[in-house]
């Protein structure tokens, strides 16, 4: 970083040395983070306006235009990212998929977080038997292959989007519960929570008004870790044929069905795969960045 000036203010006794503005800006907002935010903003726009931005209906088939390559790879501008095995426009499907995948990931992360936080808090508050039960549930969830849970939900409850969201909400709650429990126990032993309890506050107040906001930053960071994993998990489930189901389309499901075409029509798979990587990369980077920001020892 370059030093621009050393000014000893007359109105203040403090001595500041300014940094290069640009350098300082990029230090608090690294370019990677800015790119990540930009991508996420784009995604947010897509989520909000998907049907209006997409050039075609994502379900519209054109069997005569199957497997058209993207523009510059032998295709034309009619389908900038090419078409899939049913002649549907990959770009439009991508937009629809981003929308569905992000909505799923967001909502399920929320569910996982609520479930995890609730159970974690219960364990932290009651300790003893309740805690043992929660820990057992946590272990059981961690040891149960997710595939089986997925099968269960889909078999018993069908496969509507709502259910998929709920199902994915079951993913990762145990980690959040574990974190929430740990944080809540240590927070409860910290002065501020004891202090409020000693004022005569009810558990609701202690956990809801005090502990939750205090551990929220860590929880948010762990949610940013959960978020990309849900997107990946959904693609893994699609691989097994359990994810978002046709004719609906998600990033994972596009990649899953596109994998057979990895050689003959790679764009079907690569476009959504790139979207997955970009999105999860953005969110993970944001998470890391937030964690560093929230960590007082690093400030």
């Amino acid at each position, binding site marked *: 970083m370059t030093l621009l000036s050393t000014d000893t203010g007359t109105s203040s006794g403090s001595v500041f040395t300014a940094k290069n503005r640009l350098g300082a800006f990029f230090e608090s907002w690294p370019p990677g983070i800015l790119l990540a935010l930009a991508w996420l903003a784009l995604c947010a726009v897509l989520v909000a306006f998907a049907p209006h931005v997409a050039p075609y209906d994502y379900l519209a088939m054109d069997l005569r235009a199957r497997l058209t390559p993207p523009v510059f790879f032998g295709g034309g501008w009619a389908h900038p990212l090419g078409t899939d095995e049913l002649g549907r426009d990959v770009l439009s499907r991508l937009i629809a998929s981003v929308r569905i995948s992000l909505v799923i990931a967001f909502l399920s992360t929320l569910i996982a977080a609520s479930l995890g936080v609730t159970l974690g808090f219960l364990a932290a508050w009651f300790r003893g038997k309740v805690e043992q039960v929660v820990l057992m549930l946590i272990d059981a969830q961690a040891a149960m292959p997710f595939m089986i849970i997925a099968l269960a939900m889909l078999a018993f409850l069908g496969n509507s989007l709502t259910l998929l969201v709920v199902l994915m909400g079951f993913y990762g709650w145990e980690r959040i519960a574990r974190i929430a429990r740990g944080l809540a126990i240590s927070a409860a032993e*910290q002065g501020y929570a004891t202090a409020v309890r*000693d*004022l*005569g*506050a009810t558990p609701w*107040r202690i956990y809801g008004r005090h502990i939750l906001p205090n551990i929220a930053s860590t929880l948010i960071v762990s949610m940013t870790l959960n978020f990309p994993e849900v997107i990946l998990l959904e693609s893994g489930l699609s691989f097994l044929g359990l994810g978002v189901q046709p004719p609906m389309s998600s990033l994972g499901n596009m990649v899953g069905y596109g994998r057979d075409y990895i050689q003959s029509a790679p764009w079907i798979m690569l476009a959504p795969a790139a979207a997955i990587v970009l999105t999860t990369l953005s969110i993970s980077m944001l998470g890391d960045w937030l964690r560093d920001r929230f960590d007082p020892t690093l400030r």
Partner: protein
Amino acid sequence: MTALLCVRGLKRHFAIRRPGGLFGKPATLKAVDGLDFDIPAGRTLGLVGESGCGKSTTARLVLGLVPPGAGEVRFDGALVTARHDAAWRRQRRRMQMIYQDPLGALDRRMKVGEQIGEPIVIHEPALPAPERAARVADLMEQVGLGARMAERYPHELSGGQRQRVVIARALALDPALLVCDEPVSALDVSIQAQVLNLLDDLRARTGFAALFISHDLKVVRQMSDRVAVMYLGRIVEEGAPEEVFHRPLHPYTQALVSAIPVPGRKRARIVLEGDPPNPVDVPSGCPFHPRCPQAMAVCSREVPRLARDSGRSVACHLATAPAVQAAE
């Protein structure tokens, strides 16, 4: 039953595991091992003693934050339990605590104004917000915080200001008893003086009784009407501060008093040999005898009783055996 707070035969032991081995052997830690004291309304009892001698545990027992192992605590005649039920929560209105670490005792994500108002929200939920705000402003005025400060977060305040916030919060419901567990230990000399002065003023104004805990004898002397010296979970000496600090009877108190560094004046310290006391291995007889420069044979056999007379009590064989006293 004249005193506001009566403590009788109070004990509290903890089951712990001793270091060593993979998970350690179980052992008993006698944090508080039989306390008796009274605090009359409006008076302050100072409690001094080294780290780990059970001061904080006493504070928590007195407030009913942890259940006693034996003995009882009566506040205004009513038994203080540690069942965290509604009745217990109601009792909080009248007994409050001030903590050692003001930053730790405050929620760093809540504005201090809100935090000062929290006891009111808890105990008088019906009070309309504007009236509550007025009371908060009044409290802040009392502890010398500008009303502007209400909008700040704890980390934006200095240590002394934070402790003022804690004090304001404790006083919000006009408690009869305030337990101050090392309220100034984390503060700097100059801020410490500000806070001590403030507590003094407030006590004069509102007349609460206080249990004032510190390991700093100078601070305790500054604040208390009576002091009790604790060693390994027991009171070894009790009396008026001037008496206890200027003519300590117990050898431990003597060592403690001599160890106080006083600027500008060098004087002989009684340096105690041996390791600090360990509440897990409380020595037989007088718990202080292994470190006591004047230990006698009887000390390792018999536990000295806290002999009370004329407002001064001491638990030492030396003090109670007139012969030895004379020989000295």
